[in-house]
């Protein structure tokens, strides 16, 4: 599988470039960390000592290599502010973020599939246009605005759901899900449109195929054709998109976690930026990038499994026409 190997190699290069970009950006952050840690009335010697202690007196290249080699062997460093290990801090906050993103995708997919089926059934019909317009409205409503409206309606006016907070799964399933509903809706209500459009377009194409005509000629019902015969072959692009959307979801989760007070990785990143916790920022951004790249790599693998035409991985799509 030389194609697979080449991809893995490229992946490694991409990740290396990511670490360089992140490191340079963080290194450019203004303010002297050593001075921050030492406090305003520390002597110059104290500051110099702290600087030497956390290794800030070394050249940039050395600091970078030190940090990256640490990541390779699993040592992500530790926060200069709280002393927390970066990796532990991320892993501890990961469940909340993962749950949020997963629930948001569930919302998005469960809206997108029925909507796309309805649209593809009669393209350019009344239903199709109505859903299309709804999608335009939905995509014009950024998640932070949806969040504010949902909180106003469901927490403050109706009092059905909490506006902030997070309960771990150990507190019980419903206790855990309840405060996650509004955040997941805020994110999912934006993301479903892209999925719906992709699925709709591909499904309209699939419905032109001969085997669909055959199924129709056999007297199969519209619904059965759409769900049983057309959905799977139409869903390839949507699956790729699900992977690509992880990047946007991570971006969206940063702001949604902030609004709803969910202790996730995104919130960790925002807090670290505000407190200029360099090691933590570097760790979080690298972690996000790593997650994104791996998810998309796995999406490609899943795609190859679903679509027998893409077995070769090097892009032999369409070998069977």
């Amino acid at each position: 599988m030389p194609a697979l190997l080449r991809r893995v190699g490229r992946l490694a290069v991409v990740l290396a470039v990511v670490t360089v970009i992140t490191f340079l950006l963080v290194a450019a952050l203004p303010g002297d960390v050593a001075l921050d840690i030492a406090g305003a009335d520390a002597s110059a010697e104290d500051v110099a000592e702290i600087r030497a202690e956390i290794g800030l007196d070394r050249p940039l290249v050395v600091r970078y290599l030190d940090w990256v080699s640490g990541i390779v062997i699993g040592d992500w460093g530790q926060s200069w502010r709280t002393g927390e290990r970066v990796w532990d801090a991320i892993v501890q906050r990961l469940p909340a973020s993962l749950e949020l993103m997963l629930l948001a995708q569930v919302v998005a997919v469960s809206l997108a599939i029925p909507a796309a089926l309805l649209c593809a059934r009669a393209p350019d019909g009344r239903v199709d246009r109505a859903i299309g317009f709804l999608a335009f409205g939905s995509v014009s409503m950024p998640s932070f605005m949806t969040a504010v409206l949902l909180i106003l309606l469901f927490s403050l006016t109706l009092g059905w759901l909490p506006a902030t907070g997070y309960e771990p799964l150990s507190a019980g399933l419903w206790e855990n899900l309840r405060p996650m509903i509004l955040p997941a809706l805020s994110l999912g209500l934006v993301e479903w449109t892209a999925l719906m459009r992709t699925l709709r377009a591909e499904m309209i194409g699939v419905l032109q195929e001969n085997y669909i005509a055959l199924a129709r000629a056999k007297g199969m019902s519209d619904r059965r054709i759409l769900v049983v015969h057309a959905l799977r072959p139409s869903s390839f692009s949507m699956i790729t998109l699900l992977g690509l959307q992880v990047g946007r979801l991570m971006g969206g989760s940063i702001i949604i976690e902030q609004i709803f007070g969910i202790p996730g990785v995104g919130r960790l990143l925002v807090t670290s930026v505000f407190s200029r916790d360099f090691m933590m920022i570097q760790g979080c951004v690298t972690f996000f990038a790593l997650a994104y790249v791996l998810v998309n790599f796995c999406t490609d693998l899943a795609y190859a499994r679903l679509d027998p035409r893409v077995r070769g991985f090097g892009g032999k799509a369409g070998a069977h026409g």
Partner: protein
Amino acid sequence: MADVAAPLPKSGVAAVEARHAEAIAAHRRRRRLGPVFWIPAAWLVALILAAAAAPWLGLAPPDEIDWMAIQVPPGSEGHVLGTDVLGRDILSRLLHGARVSLTVGFAAPAIGVGIGLALGLAAGYFRGWVDEVVGVLIDAWLAIPGLAVLLLFSAVFGGSLSMVCLSLGLLFIPAAARITRAQTLSYANREFVLAARAMGASDARILLREVLPNIIWPLMAFVMIDIPIAIVIEGALSFLGLSVKAPTPSWGGMIAEGREHIEGASWISLIPTAAMFVTVLSFNLAGDVLRRRFADTREAAL
């Protein structure tokens, strides 16, 4: 034979003419942009004009505190859209905030597409190692979540309007570069490019005079999709307090400020929310109509 055949061409001509007229009418129908374009366009033009003229409209300055009218609802005397918790006029803040949103909305995609265009042209035309390097850079840039990059940028460079435009613009590079590269690849070996090369044209001349004019329109369609996206991201940034600094009003900042008082004075948040929604929706709708038009024109030209 002749008298039998004679009427036939006549009716044939009539049929052809009729079909022709029908085609022209259909074409006209398609050329008409319709209310789905004109209503959003009217809102956008009005907004742009009002935002540009904001300081001269006779409104209270956006940071002026009216002690006599703290947190008054919309429709109050002297404050058409009411005031916020500090007694600042919401209409004035809305229009001044629109300047930020619109500036970022136009400038950021322009910067991103400009850089992406250069990278994509180079990658698609020279191929080889240039292509590899550009590809890796773009993949790496895509892997970092945009909001994380923006958080870092705003922390590094502070919240001036030009820095927000620039850092947001960087986010639009990857997609623009990929589209340009794909388009360039498809044109790089066309006959007219080969002819230009055979005549001894330089690479720069071929790129600028032969390739660029062909790929610029699909890219323009792409810019139109980017404008609302840029406005939304700027909104998110200012909502987090990481866009332009405090006294300068911005829509996201107004929504965030009003959030704490949303129970008693929901209009403080809801008015900028509505403004942003209508504006982004307008850009999306008008942009979609124009994009289809571009696609039609290109198909017709082929």
